């Protein structure tokens, strides 16, 4: 009996244990096999964190490595109100002065609250707010002070006497309630200098899981044009964190470094840019035009050393960015006036239609053609082609245009690049207007040679002048010299690009001979002459068009020139829109040209013209090559 009873009990116990083990086994299989994917994802979600590593935006440098735009590491200060509990006032009191924020408004932000939202299943869910952004672009030092202030924060209670939960609450408040996220801010250390060329930034924000990822994007100028190389590529890190959100480095899974943006090196020279900006600002005060622009280009390469348009803007101050402060050098078109005569005369010389010595009757200042009367600013009789350039005779240029013919005139203007974008890598470049011959009126053939009936950008006009300085070769304007890594290693170099030869070398030499006479006492721009260099240039004074008609008393004055005339190093353009105190290009823009040219020549150490240095003392010291061979 006893044995049977014992056996029964043993069997019962065995059955119970067996059932229990079977239950556990089932649970094990359920957890480990059937729900493996779901639970492993959940477990990973609890411990695994993915951190995005933002790339640093590349710098913009001038030709000599001076910083024009850079990115500074800053902090975005955030808070988790759910960890602040009933202490928002105390926290706000400590950090508001450091962040220079209103204490009451900050306390309001830090107050814990809930929000209602619809989840992916369409259910309405209430959730506690865990993320508020307190301040952006906070310097590293300020964040360190905030961090120290929070660590030392006391709440007027003896925390040792508090319960464990309350102690935990205060510890979390100090450590995790206010935290920072790494960010970067775009800084333009030279302020206004080359603002329109560099452009300005904007911050693009993407909401990822309730957190905002910000990215700097360019909005104008080089910042926009070179957005891709400047941006870099973001990296990421998949890792695990402990309870205190500290990374467990040993459990780092993926670690892909961010690739910083490339530095963009411009052809702009800060010093030349500063010279031009200073000279134009002085002219702006003197002549109070609506706007004034200046460009300095190397004619042999097309490198732009300075590009200024006043009024300009400071990319650091978004309030200074207005439509009036646009880069008019490339965005605005105008009738060029007499500077366009270089196109018709060089075309006619190149075509063999005229010679510099050929004479034209300038009709004593009045020339009737197709029902219109053309005027010169002075009554000229017979003028040679060279003198037509010297005196800037409209009638002479018109007659050369007639002799050249509509088709040839159009072809040369087109070859010089008018009516097309120059291809400078800056956004917003206008094409200008150069209508095909079939759309020309009867007077177009006499209007266009004197720079009317055609609309050009200031850069196109300078490019044409630089073509003459460069033996007839049209160069593509360059603003970006190269892309390089932060350590200076070059990734890509942009080489000077010849577009086409518009006129022959011989023609360009003849043109230079004619253009040299402009900045003389017989020419229209005696004020543009330099003491130590021979200048070749052309003046322009165009009546402004408003509402389809020429506005009386409103002019665009310009002077384009290059020097030294026989070995051109710099080609400079100065254009004023509605100048006061005179309006002739030679009178108002000539002195500005001279000012810029003298300062640039000194800075760039351009050798003076030997012909103009006859009174100078002998400056040659010795032959360095010889010295190196015989120390």
């Amino acid at each position: 009996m006893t044995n049977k009873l014992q056996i029964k009990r043993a069997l019962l116990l065995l059955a119970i244990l067996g059932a229990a083990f079977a239950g556990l086994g089932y649970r094990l299989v359920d957890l480990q096999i059937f729900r493996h994917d779901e639970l492993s994802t959940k477990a990973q979600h609890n411990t695994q964190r993915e951190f995005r590593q933002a790339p640093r935006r590349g710098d913009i440098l001038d030709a000599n490595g001076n910083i024009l735009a850079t990115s500074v590491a800053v902090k975005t200060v955030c808070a988790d109100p759910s960890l602040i509990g009933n202490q928002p006032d105390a926290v706000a009191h400590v950090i508001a002065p450091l962040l220079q924020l209103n204490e009451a408004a900050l306390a309001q932000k830090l107050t814990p609250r809930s929000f209602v939202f619809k989840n992916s299943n369409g259910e309405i869910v209430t959730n506690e707010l865990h993320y508020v952004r307190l301040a952006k672009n906070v310097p590293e030092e300020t964040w360190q002070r905030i961090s120290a202030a929070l660590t030392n924060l006391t709440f007027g209670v003896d925390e040792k006497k508090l319960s464990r939960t309350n102690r935990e609450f205060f510890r979390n408040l100090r450590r995790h309630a206010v935290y920072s996220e790494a960010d970067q801010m775009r800084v333009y250390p030279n302020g206004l200098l080359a603002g329109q060329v560099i452009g300005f930034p904007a911050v693009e924000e993407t909401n990822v899981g309730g957190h905002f990822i910000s990215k700097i994007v360019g909005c104008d100028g080089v910042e926009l044009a070179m957005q891709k190389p400047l941006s870099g590529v973001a990296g990421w890190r998949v890792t695990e964190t402990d309870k205190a959100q500290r990374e467990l480095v040993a459990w780092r899974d993926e670690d892909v470094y961010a690739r910083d943006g490339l530095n963009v090196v411009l052809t702009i020279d800060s010093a030349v840019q500063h010279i031009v900006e200073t000279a134009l600002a002085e002219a702006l005060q003197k002549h109070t035009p609506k706007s004034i622009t200046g460009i300095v280009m190397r004619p042999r390469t097309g490198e732009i050393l300075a590009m200024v348009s006043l009024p300009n803007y400071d990319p650091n101050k978004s309030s200074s960015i207005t439509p009036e402060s646009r880069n008019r050098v490339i965005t605005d078109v105008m009738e060029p006036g007499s500077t366009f005569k270089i196109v018709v005369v060089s075309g006619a010389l190149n075509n063999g239609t005229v010679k510099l010595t050929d004479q034209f009757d300038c009709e004593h200042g009045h020339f009737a053609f197709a029902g219109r009367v053309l005027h010169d600013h002075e009554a000229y009789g017979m003028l040679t082609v060279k003198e037509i350039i010297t005196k800037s005779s409209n009638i002479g240029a018109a007659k050369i245009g007639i002799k050249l013919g509509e088709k040839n005139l159009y072809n040369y203007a087109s070859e010089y690049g008018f009516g097309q974008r120059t291809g400078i890598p800056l956004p917003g470049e206008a094409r200008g207007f150069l209508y095909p011959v079939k759309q020309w009126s009867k007077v177009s053939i006499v209007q266009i040679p004197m720079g009317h009936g055609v609309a050009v950008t200031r850069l196109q006009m300078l490019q044409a002048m630089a073509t003459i300085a460069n033996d007839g070769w049209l160069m593509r304007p360059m603003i970006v010299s190269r892309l390089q890594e932060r350590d200076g290693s070059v990734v890509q170099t942009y080489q000077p690009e010849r577009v086409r030869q518009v006129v022959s070398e011989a023609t360009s030499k003849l043109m230079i001979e004619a253009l040299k006479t402009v900045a003389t006492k017989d020419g229209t721009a005696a004020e543009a002459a330099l003491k130590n260099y021979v200048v070749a240039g052309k003046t322009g004074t165009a009546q402004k068009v408003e509402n389809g008609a020429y506005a009386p008393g409103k002019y665009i004055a310009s002077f384009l020139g290059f020097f030294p005339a026989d070995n051109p190093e710099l080609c400079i353009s100065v254009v004023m829109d509605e100048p006061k105190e005179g309006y002739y290009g030679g009178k108002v823009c000539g002195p500005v040209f001279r000012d810029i040219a003298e300062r640039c020549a000194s800075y760039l150490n351009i050798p003076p013209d030997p012909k103009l240095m006859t009174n100078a003392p002998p400056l040659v010291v010795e032959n360095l090559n010889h010295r190196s061979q015989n120390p």
Partner: protein
Amino acid sequence: MAKNRKHQAASIRFGPALKASFLCLLIGGSAIGFVWQKNEIYRLGQQIGQREAKLKQLRNDNKRLGDQITILHSPVMLDQRAKELNLGLAPAQPLQVVRLDETPSPAKDKNVSRQFTQRPVAGLTP
């Protein structure tokens, strides 16, 4: 049997005891070693994390200070300082410049200006 057990040469057998002790030490040592190793991994991980943060901080500081130097050397800043300090500095006039007769190497490409060729070639090409 009992007699035989009673009259064994040595009442304590050291061999098995040593083996057991060795096994215990091995298991215990392995366990302690495992925990120590885990602690080391954690500690070194924390150090790596801290040093990475420090390195990042130093790189940022280095960049910031480098930028400061460049900005202080920029022509605009120098011009501004020269004006502020009223040093009476002015650009040299062409006649004040002493030129040394240094025979330049001829530019290979006509399209390249003299100023352009004077730049150091090293580092310009990839």
